[in-house]
């Protein structure tokens, strides 16, 4: 099962359902919604934080948040 945390650089995924209690509303409002596309742009050492393109918004989030968002990889 893949999450944003397991994306490789340049890979894209489609966001699946996730647990709302651990994802901040702010991230949801930035575009983290089921069905939206997310791409990993870059990662800092130790894969933390992660610089992603989510629904055309470029943001950085911590790994502890990224592991809770499951995705389906897009080839």
């Amino acid at each position, binding site marked *: 099962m893949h999450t944003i945390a397991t994306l490789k650089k340049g890979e894209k995924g489609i966001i699946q359902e996730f647990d*709302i*209690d651990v994802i*901040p*509303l*702010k*991230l*949801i*409002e*930035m*575009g983290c*919604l089921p069905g939206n596309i997310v791409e990993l*742009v*870059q990662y*800092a*050492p*130790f894969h*933390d*934080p992660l*610089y992603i393109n989510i*629904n*055309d*918004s*470029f*943001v*950085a*989030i*911590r790994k502890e*948040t990224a592991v809770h968002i499951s995705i389906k990889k897009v080839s």
Partner: protein
Amino acid sequence: MLKVALIGNPNTGKTSVFNHLTGLNQQVGNYPGITVEKKIGYCKLTRHHKAKIIDLPGTYSLNASSLDESIVIELLMNKNDEDFPDVAIVVSDVENLKRNLLLFTQIKELEIPTILVINMSDRMKRKGISIDIPVLEKELNTKIALVSSRTKDGIEGIKTLLQDYKNISSDACLDTSKIDVEYFDRLKKAFPNQSLYKLWLVITQDVNFGKVDKKPMEDATSFSFATKTNSELKKLQQKETIVRYKFINDTLKKGYLVDKSKARDLRSILDRILTHKVFGYVIFFGILLLIFQAIFDWSSVPMDFIDSSFASLGDWVRNTFPAGVFTDLLVNGIIAGLGGIVIFIPQIAFLFLFISVLEESGYMSRVVFLMDRIMRRFGLSGKSIVPLISGTACAIPAIMATRNIESWKERLITILVTPFTTCSARLPVYAILIALVIPDQRILGVFNAQGLTLMFLYLLGFAAAIISAYILNKVLKIKSKSYFVIEMPNYKLPMFKNVFINVFEKTKAFLVDAGKIILAISIVLWFLASYGPGEKFNNAENIVKTEVVNQEISSLELDDKIASYKLEHSYIGIVGKTIEPIIRPLGYDWKIGIALVTSFAAREVFVGTLATIYSVGSAGEEEETIKQKMAAEVYPNGKKVFTLASGISLLLFYAFAMQCMATLAIVKKETNSWKWPMIQLFGMTAIAYITALISFQLFK
């Protein structure tokens, strides 16, 4: 006067739009009770009409996730607030329109006439973007101004729209109650006279509403407890976001087109280098080094100029005004105090210049991204990097810069440890002590021992900050949700006007906030140093003259001796003598004790005080003379006062002690309690005492 509120996501150029509309007609103040800055400006719409524009903190949504974002929702919910707007302007930008419109649709439901500004029109061609304004205006039920704050294109169009504000619709463009028709129906029946969306906001906010009328809020919250759990509310909020984005996507399909083949991408090229896992860090530290070097080099000329100007001013006043108490207060209390504040403006202004450029260009977010993981090990946030760097100029604006840290615990720890970084005021103290006790030798043939010591002290400041952050993180039991989300904005060329206004405001904040405290304490210390109880003080002149009756000394030297004797027997001299037993184990005598006390006004006062104590007065504060006197100073038993041991002990004391009253005042303001500044005061001074003690005993 027409009241306008400027709202929008960060990084949309909202501040540029504000600056264009208001010019320098701006005032920055504070919201009562909290420390978020309130920016108000005035704009001339026509010859006869002015508008008062309030620039609200940037936010991504009305659902606030930090203190400054909560300002926006508090103001817009409170019709009785003096700043409640007649018109709202939501600023967005051509590239992030989709996300920007989320906030827009929320604002639209607040029943305020709302205009949409789409900024950065100059980037449209480069990115292959085309926008159909009339279609968007129809779908969004608003009037749109397409502007470029870089070229000033379209700004007048905003003023035109504002003049015509009565014709702007205050209807919503979508209906939130669709997300749960039954629930909102019940809400409407329970509160028939309230706006449904506003009720919804009140029910779902975590925010503490200071000024909104509490009664409807309490009723609404208890209503929600009776009908929906927290978890269900969160699901509804997610659904609301989905509904909004669906509406936005449908709207943009009709009026917004991107031709990806035309888009040129600066972002990915720059990011590949600047966030590289090795080069990213190398470049960042390289930039830091350059900044520090530049600040040192560029500041010395203005600082010398300010120093001599104030000295001349003091001389002129002393020679022009009649001798007496008032003149003495003016020269040695007020002018000296003011000089001590103004002299730091070059360093502070330059540091903020660099930080502002890094922020405006978008690079600072990359720095936060690179540093977050490391900072978190120590209980800090990636966003703590700006305060820590700023602290090397002055801790006061640095502490104010912590306001964008979402987690209260991370923010508090940043505030508490920032004063450990080596601020500008410590430098004059370090300079003279190093010159005095550290041998001017080369180590390993390359490095200068004195230079190394200075660098070591800088690193020590950072190390102390990091280590105490680590300890505080383990010790402080504060529950704090930490949801780190930071936008990575587009890279852009900083606009000079914005940078200039930013530097001006921050420097002014330093001058006013730190300044008034430093000045007040300088005056108090002047009094304590100029007056003393008893015979010895009042008869100083005669006593000293009798003492030197057989010596050949000039009248200037006599004056110096009298001044020194007076100081010894003044109130502050008595304080010095009283604390001598406590500081003797650190290698200090009562004269140094006096200087330690006066440093509570500002650390660099140490040098001036020593000059007076060692009778350097009339020869001026030239470093050479003070150094000679300090080097010659001996205890009654013949041993030197300033040795390697006592020098190191003093250096360490100044590195760690919390002596800056102005910093304590700012910490109290930013944390809203006396508890934390007191902990800082006692904690840091205790650490200073212990390290000074150990080092003196070790090296002597």
